[in-house]
């Protein structure tokens, strides 16, 4: 997780705008404290130095590339979603057929479920309502249900696959 610490240090340096060696050290120390305090909410296990120093990602460049591709995909979806929304709202006659649909989940981790839920909310026509207590079903509110079965299939194929690639 030393990567995350470096990323936090970079963020610190960029925000303060001072990039001397002292600022990097301050950034690293703050980053470490933040990681240490929020460890449990990320990894479901107590903090260990070994886990901290572990370079879990074998290929950091590939991971970075995947994240960038994911962010790009998300951005395109957000633009589409906003245009669809503007069309629906500005149409002379409102044509909406809302519905609430349950979607079975394959992602397991907290981070994965959160990312998927956020992605669904930001993409065209759907808002996440809640996740079931056993974390196996996601309930989404949709603006225009065509065929619920098709919505389920599309969400799983387009969004969940991408999230699974990044976060199990």
């Amino acid at each position, binding site marked *: 997780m030393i990567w995350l610490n470096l990323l936090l240090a970079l963020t610190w340096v*960029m*925000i303060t705008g001072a990039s001397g060696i002292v600022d990097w050290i301050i950034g690293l120390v703050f980053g470490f404290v933040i990681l240490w305090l929020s460890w449990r909410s990320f990894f479901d296990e107590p903090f260990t130095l070994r886990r901290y120093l572990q370079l879990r990602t074998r290929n950091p460049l590939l991971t970075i590339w995947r994240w960038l591709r994911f962010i790009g995909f998300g951005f395109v979806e957000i633009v589409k979603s906003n245009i669809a*929304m503007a069309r629906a709202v500005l149409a002379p006659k409102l044509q909406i057929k809302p519905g609430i649909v349950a979607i079975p989940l394959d992602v397991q981790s907290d981070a994965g479920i959160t990312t998927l839920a*956020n992605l669904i909310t*930001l993409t065209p026509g759907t808002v996440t309502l809640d996740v*079931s207590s056993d974390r196996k079903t996601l309930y989404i509110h949709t603006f225009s*249900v065509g065929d619920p079965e098709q919505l389920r299939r599309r969400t799983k194929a387009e969004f969940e696959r991408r999230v699974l690639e990044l976060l199990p």
Partner: protein
Amino acid sequence: MTPLEILTLLITLVGVFFIVVSSIGLVRLPDLYTRVHAGGKSGTLGIIGVLLGAGIFFISDLRIVFKMLLLIAFFFITAPVAAHMLDRAAFLTGVKPMEDTTPNELAGRYDPETRQLS
């Protein structure tokens, strides 16, 4: 006007347009759940537009550009969560969805005592 100012203006205008759409949606749409769509979605591109406009105007100072990008990232993390919490709270307190909301696969799935969702 310099080209930079024109670009700033254009991007900010796109943002403002979507914020206006979002407000119109809040008024026009029939029930809380569809209104959350308007607030939670059109808002996002609106915010991107306005913040990006500010970032581009101050493009010579990379600190400001970075801060704007960071603000956008945080907005993307928090806005969907707010939409989700609103919807969930509304459903739990019994706000009825509009009439032809079909299917409603969430109806009756909450345990009224424990609020566990099955």
